[in-house]
């Protein structure tokens, strides 16, 4: 039945797509008169060549794991959640409200509370699009796009009019209390007697992200709910026939998705800036789309793809610092990865399928 062996489907096609995206990126770099090999070397040195680079790469990776998982979970229910950006923004609001509400004595208590805040706010922001899709048939892609803009306006309003400390001109919340400071990986390494990644933002959230990967894997492939989500995603009529409620699955899948996107705020709001600023998400919600596509919506794939994009992000920053290649090159690479692994998937897949069919025929003969 399958035209290709599974490994070709899961590993070969994304790799070829990625390769194509990289080749075109190299051509773009050549076209603006720079050297692709120099660019690659700068990026590798800057992002992976030192513990300082790794510290930032892993920090970005953490963000992208959450937003990538968010897109992936929704995708299994064949829902395309473009709203990760807005959900992560509102998740940040949840984190800020929790952190500013009490004089937290220790991060160990503040962290679970902030996580609940982040996930609840993110999920709430996904709830309305989910409900409208399930009950009123309004397209979730359009509503989540709209909700991204509404979230930006909401956050702008809240930061300027409500959370901004008296006398401050900056549209940002007050600093979180000392007790919400999450241990950075540097501190943890120092406790083990190692010097690693000084002044880097990567923190304990990185491990939470890895746990989230495992939990999402368990959820999707080892639970009844996950089965229902996948069944619904494959065929809505079949799922209904099996007694699975489309409304329930749509809403639950989007709540989980929004919650995961919201959890990203633990990393960037609580772990890094330690206050809520405008545009804290910096496009990570959209990168989640690329990450999920690259990772074939599998948590392990998402992890690897997030690592790749973490590398690209940190490497891109280094490019802007050390060469005359602008940082925006990364957005181009990101676009090409989405284009090739997502939209132009069949361009790679069709010839490959033909190749495998031809090989099989020769094998049979």
């Amino acid at each position, binding site marked *: 039945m399958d035209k290709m062996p599974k490994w070709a489907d899961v590993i070969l096609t994304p790799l070829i797509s990625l390769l194509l995206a990289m080749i075109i990126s190299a051509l*773009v770099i050549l076209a*603006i*008169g720079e050297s692709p090999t120099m660019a690659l070397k700068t990026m590798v040195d800057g992002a992976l060549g030192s513990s300082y680079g790794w510290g930032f790469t892993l920090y970005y990776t953490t963000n992208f794991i959450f937003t990538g998982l968010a897109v992936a979970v929704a995708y299994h229910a064949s829902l*395309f959640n*473009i709203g990760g950006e807005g959900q992560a923004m509102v998740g940040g609001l949840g984190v800020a409200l929790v952190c500013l509400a009490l004089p937290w004595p220790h991060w160990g208590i503040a962290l679970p509370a902030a996580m609940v805040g982040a996930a609840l706010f993110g999920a709430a922001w996904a709830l*309305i699009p989910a409900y*409208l899709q399930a009950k*009123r*048939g*309004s*397209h979730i*892609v*359009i*509503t989540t*796009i*709209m*909700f991204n*803009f*509404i979230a*930006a*306006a*909401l956050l*702008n*309003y809240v930061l*300027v*009019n409500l959370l901004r400390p008296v006398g401050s001109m900056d549209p940002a919340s007050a600093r979180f209390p000392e007790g919400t400071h999450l241990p950075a990986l540097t501190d943890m390494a120092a406790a083990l007697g190692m010097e690693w990644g000084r002044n880097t933002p990567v923190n304990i959230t990185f491990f939470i992200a890895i746990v989230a990967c495992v939990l999402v894997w368990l959820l999707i492939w080892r639970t009844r709910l996950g089965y229902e989500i996948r069944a619904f995603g494959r065929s809505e009529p079949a799922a209904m026939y099996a007694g699975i409620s489309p409304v329930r699955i749509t809403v639950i899948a989007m709540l989980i998705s929004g919650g995961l996107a919201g959890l990203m705020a633990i990393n960037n709001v609580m772990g890094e800036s330690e206050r809520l600023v405008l545009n804290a998400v910096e496009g990570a919600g*959209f990168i989640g*789309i690329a990450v999920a*596509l690259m990772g074939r919506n599998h948590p392990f794939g998402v992890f690897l793809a997030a690592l790749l994009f973490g590398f690209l992000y940190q490497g891109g920053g280094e490019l802007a610092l050390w060469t005359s290649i*602008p940082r*925006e*090159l*990364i*957005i*181009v*690479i*990101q*676009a*090409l990865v*989405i*284009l090739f692994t*997502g*939209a*132009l*998937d*069949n*361009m790679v897949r*069709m010839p490959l399928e033909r190749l495998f069919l031809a090989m099989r025929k020769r094998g049979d003969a």
Partner: protein
Amino acid sequence: MDFATIIQILDSAVRLMTPLLLACLAGLYSERSGVFDIGLEGKMLMAAFTSASVAFVTGSAWLGLLAGIAGSMALSLIHGLASITFRGNQLISGVAINFLASGMTVLLGIKIFGLGGRTPALTDGGRFNEVTLPFADALRDVPILGPIYSELISGHTILVYVAFALVPLTWWVLFRTRFGLRLRAVGENPASVDTAGVSVTRLRFAAIALAGILCGLAGAYLATGLSAGFVKEMTAGRGFIALAALIFAKWRPWNALFATFLFGLLEAIANRYPNLDLGIVTVPSMFMNALPYILTVIILAGFVGRAIPPRAGGEPYVKER
């Protein structure tokens, strides 16, 4: 609020609605043919950049306009290749196009002009000048109608008039020509069009090309009509507001005119009164900015009439074999 102020706000609304209207009509052609287009934003942005660049180099707004159309068309072709030829996901392709435009415009802008992503300010020849309609000055002093004619109707760039003329033209093409009938049919039921011996692929590519031209006009208007040059991310979500307007208009040309006018008016009011005081409550500008999106969600929810998209929208057509 006196009469002169109202005229000024309406005048500003007309300017602000023009890019929305052009992009909305672009989306209309594309989506009526069954190809979702969330890449309107990216195509406008690319067109704004290419038109401003060429207009600066050549000093001709018209050459800039052509370049704008070419830039937008290139992205349209990518979208067509991905979503028609290779039957990929149209939404994902649109997302990719938005990022491609967002990255490429700044990348090229920094490399070519070295101004941090801006293009140099355009001088007279590089911009579309305001057209003064006949007798506009003579009629200025006539009460009520004078200001309406000389300030509101006259004094816009040629692209504004083109945009307005495109509304009846689009209506005529879609609902009174054979091409339009086929275009709508291919968005509702491509198999029937195919059975009639008309190429689905060719029709959809034609629709996407039209969308490319219209987004090109929209982008060129932004960079060489409304302002004097390209600025990083200058579309600022207008492509998505146009998309919202398209849903608001239920995929109809005349409704698109009203929807984009409404959204243009909202933007004009928000610009003029950052904090709108309604007596009882003060409406913050953020709310005014978010209003198009909120309205679209309400419309989508079906509380104010139902917006039903073309039935085959978003689905690649697979010919039976």
